[in-house]
Structures are given as structure tokens and as C-alpha cells.
């Protein structure tokens, strides 16, 4: 295999056992048809296990809303200057869902241009966010993870951390076209983990990324804070995906409202005012 930064990580037995339970057709090279690499995935999850179980204090609620089989789309808000939110979602459906699933994100296209990131994203099933890729994965009954805010969302500062910015509409058209249920989720605490004060766009352009977040301690390293991940009931929309934009925008707003509602619940949980058990019993 190619030189990989994850290579030295010894795979944890728990990760090994869960990898074996993933519903992915591995071939004799330990690869799936999209080039996802079982061993690299195992090393990645071993690293992620540390952050999910120890580094951050993660509270996950509503995981029962995530279908254990078949196509589905996890749709949520961005919180934190870079993909900490995505990593925690991937970790939650791998470590806490029975049986485990691999959430496949629609990665920012700039990642494909960066050495090592390009290699890592393609071996870990996090493909560039293109409608063709998304459609193919959904038709293959995979679990897709979408952040409709895109890079606008990760660029939120500490003061905007629990707000929502403009949603793209592509995800909803794809859900209509492929008959995919949308599972809304909220991620709360990412803004506290990476408290962005400002984003340096010129430095970013120079490095080949959209921007570089700056925190009070300068580097955008995440702090070991309490983060909350709340999944909501699946939403189904009937349609073809060829509807006029104003129709689709209306449905996108429905999803956005649900996510805003889940963010409020997540904040309550994070402040200790709402017990996760109360949320679980509510439905």
C-alpha cells in the first residue's frame, strides 16, 4: 500500500470486530468497488475512537432514527472550523449504531487537491461532493452524510456557532430522485471546540484551502469540550427531483427548521437542562 500517515496505528480489537460487521462488499484486496480500504478504515476508526470516547465528551441522542440498512441521508449543521462535526457523526454511527454503518460524507472538493487528504478521503469513502457520486452511493444503499451549508457552514465564527447559514438544495433533489429518507441531525459544541474568531482567506488560498480559522490560541486545534449530537426522526418527501426551485426550497426550509429545532435541544442537553433520556422517551 501507499505511504499512509495512519500506517503506524495498531487497530483496536473493538474496531476490528465492528469493521467485520459493516455491510460493505470487500474483495480479496480488502477494497470495495469505490476503493474504500478495510485496513485503512480500521486504523482511521482506531484513531477516531480516541477522540470520540476520550478526548471529547460526546453525548449522542436519537441514534435509533438512523436506519440500520438501506439508503439514507444524514443531513445536519456545521459547527466548528473544520470537519470535527463530520468525524463525530462518522464515529457515532460506527461505534454506537447496531450494526455499525459507514457514513460517507460529501467532501469539499479542495480536499481532493491536497496531498495525503486526497489519498485519505478516497480510501475512507469520503468522496468529493458531486451529485453523480451521491446518486451512485444512494442507489447502492449506502449511508450518505451531507452538510448543506457547505464551506459557508464551517466558516461560522464562535458567535454564530449555533446558527444556520444558507442551505444548498442539491441534497433534497437527490433525496427525491432516489427516494431516500433524510435523517436530520444537529451537532452542538463544535463552536466551543474550535472557537473561531476570524478566518484568514488569503493564507487559505495560499495553502489551497478556502480559509484558515483563527482561534484565541491561534491554531484551529479542537479543545476537549462536551459536544452533543442529536438525530431526529427521518423525513420523507415525495417527488421526482425535477420540481421547480421554489417547491424544493420550501422543503429544504422544512429540513432546516427541523435541524434548528434539534440544535435547540442539543444546546439544552449540553447545558444540562435536558436529559437525553427525556428526549428518547418523548417519541
Amino acid at each position, binding site marked *: 500500500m*501507499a505511504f499512509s500517515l495512519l500506517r503506524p496505528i495498531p487497530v483496536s480489537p473493538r474496531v476490528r470486530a465492528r469493521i467485520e460487521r459493516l455491510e460493505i462488499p470487500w474483495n480479496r*484486496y480488502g477494497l470495495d*468497488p469505490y*476503493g474504500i480500504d478495510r485496513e485503512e478504515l480500521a486504523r482511521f476508526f482506531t484513531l477516531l475512537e480516541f477522540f470520540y470516547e476520550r478526548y471529547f465528551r460526546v453525548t449522542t441522542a436519537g441514534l435509533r432514527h438512523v436506519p440500520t440498512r438501506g439508503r439514507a441521508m444524514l443531513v445536519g449543521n456545521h459547527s466548528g472550523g473544520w470537519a470535527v462535526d463530520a468525524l463525530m457523526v462518522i464515529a457515532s454511527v460506527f461505534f454506537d449504531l447496531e450494526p455499525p454503518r459507514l457514513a460517507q460524507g460529501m467532501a469539499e*472538493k479542495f480536499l481532493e487537491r491536497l*496531498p495525503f487528504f486526497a*489519498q485519505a478521503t*478516497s480510501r475512507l469513502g469520503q468522496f*468529493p461532493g458531486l451529485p453523480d457520486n451521491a446518486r451512485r452511493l444512494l442507489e447502492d444503499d449506502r449511508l450518505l452524510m451531507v452538510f448543506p451549508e457547505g464551506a459557508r457552514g464551517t466558516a461560522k465564527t464562535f458567535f454564530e456557532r449555533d446558527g444556520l447559514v444558507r442551505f444548498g438544495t442539491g441534497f433534497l433533489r437527490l433525496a427525491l430522485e432516489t427516494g431516500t429518507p433524510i435523517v436530520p441531525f444537529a451537532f452542538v459544541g463544535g463552536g466551543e471546540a474550535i472557537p473561531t474568531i476570524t478566518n484568514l482567506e488569503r493564507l487559505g488560498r495560499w495553502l489551497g484551502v478556502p480559509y484558515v480559522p483563527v482561534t484565541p490560541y491561534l491554531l484551529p486545534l479542537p479543545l476537549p469540550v462536551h459536544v452533543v449530537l442529536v438525530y431526529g426522526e427521518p423525513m420523507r418527501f415525495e417527488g421526482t427531483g425535477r420540481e421547480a426551485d421554489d417547491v424544493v426550497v420550501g422543503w429544504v426550509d422544512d429540513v432546516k427548521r427541523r435541524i434548528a429545532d434539534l440544535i435547540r435541544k442539543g444546546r439544552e442537553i449540553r447545558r444540562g437542562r435536558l436529559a437525553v433520556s427525556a428526549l428518547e422517551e418523548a417519541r
Partner: protein
Amino acid sequence: MKVVVTGVSGKMGRIVARELAGAGHRVVGIDVRPWPDPPPGIEVVLADIRKRPAEDVFRRERPDALVHMATVTYLTHGREARSRINLVGTQAVLEHAHTHGVGRVIFVGRHTYYGAAPDAPLYHTEEDPPLAVHTYPELADLVAADLYAASALWRHPEIDTCILRIVYVLGPSGHGPLASYLSARRVPTVLGYDPLFQVMHERDAARAVASALEHGLRGVFNVSGPAPIPLSVLIEEAGRPAVPVPEPILPRLLGRFGFSRLPRGAVVHLQHPVVVDGRRFRDATGFRYEYDLPETIAAFRGAFPPEGAAT
């Protein structure tokens, strides 16, 4: 059927001609290169496809089908010659096919038509446009030949024209850019990138051409075999020494110090995948590959053992 095969004396041309002859077709090959003692059922005419003697073959033989394989890459020809052979040659043989009542035409093209780019979909369908003409100028004449050949679908609607975009082939003949790349003393990769490569056995590729001919396909079809694998795995399985090089330095090393000879534009193909969806072809022909990847790579490795390996 009586089939004219252009480019018949090349490694891949011979494999396809044998496959067709084996299937009971009569093959008349055209090539500027000789093929001494071709097997029974195959006749070779020494001619340039752009010249009059080539047309004479069509006039004299009245073939039922044309398999056009006389396209060339940077490996053997310079820029000017490439565009003359790939474009003017394709134009000439399509004209002959039209003039002399050939019913079926197969253009044997390449999946690199789609080009590698960071923002390209992982699996290309036949509708996708060529993306890398500006980053990989050495492909431009092949892309143009592919599109030109496809225009025969409306220019000569009476001919069943079929464009095949076949993935990289590998096998005992050592044909093709991939084999050439892997045969170097040092096989360069781009540090931090490991794109998927799609490879099929050369025999399977030839079987696909024969199958397209028999089914009288019309339109554009991707042809693929086993699922793609990362370049690093391919190089390792082929027993070659992969040397990861940072991207800015790599173009300066190509063709030197034992590194594979590649055009500068090929570097992007070592960073990003070109992978095609071959479903349309499989659905239309029922084609199934015979050689899996380990067999395919082993066939190449057996014919071209790595340096220093026990033979």
C-alpha cells in the same frame, strides 16, 4: 463476417485479430508495420490507412465490418504524427466505410478520454465530457478522434457505429501505456495521492471488441473488467518498486534516472482516478470478464518479471 482491422500488427491489434479469427470471422488487416506469418484466417495488407492502397482494400474486399485500432499514443509518436494518424486516419477509414457499404464500425478507444481531475465523478458514464484536455495535451488528439468517430452516428446513420472506451489493458503482450509505465526500473507515484486504476486483461478487451461486433452495437460504450484498485496495490502486485515523489519535483524526473517515461500531463492521472461505469456495455452484450485482477497482473508480471526477481 469479413472484418477489416486497422492497426492489426500492433500488440493489441494482433490479439483482437486472433480473437475475431477464432470466432470464425475473416480478418483483413491493414497496417504500415508487417505481421509476418499471421495465423490462418488473417490476411495483412501493408498500407497506410490515409493512402489509396488502404481504400483499395475496402473496394476489393467489400468488408461487412471495420474495427479501427490504428490510433497511436505519445509512447510511439510525436505530436504532429499523432494528430495526423489519429484524426486524419480516422476520417479516412470512416469515409471508406461509408463509401463501400460497410455495415458495422467499431472505434476502439480509451477510457482516458474522460481525463483525471480532482472534481470528476468517481465513476464516469458515457455522457460525461472529456475533462482533462487542457491538463493533458497528449490526449487531445485521441479525445478528438473519439468524438469524431462518434459523429459518424449522425453523419452516416446507415452504419452501426460503436465507440468503445476501454480501460487500461495488461497482459503477457506488454501492450499499452500502463505496461510501459510499470516496466520502468523505478515506477513513480505522486506522494500523498493514490488514485484508483481500472485494469482488464488484454484477452478480455479483445473479447469485448468481438462481442461488440457480434451484437452490432450502436453508440458509445465504456468497457471495464474487474473493480478498480489503488495504483499502489497495482504496482505492488506487479512486483515493481514504487517511488513516491512530491508533485512539484516529479515532472523533472520522468524519463530520467530509471523513472518511467511519461508526459508531464500524465502526472494528474497519477493523482486522480479515471474510472468508468461499464454497465451499459455489459447490459447490451452480456459481456463478463474471464480474468480477474490477480490473474491479469500475474500474466503481465510473468511475461515481464521485475528486475532481480528469480525467473
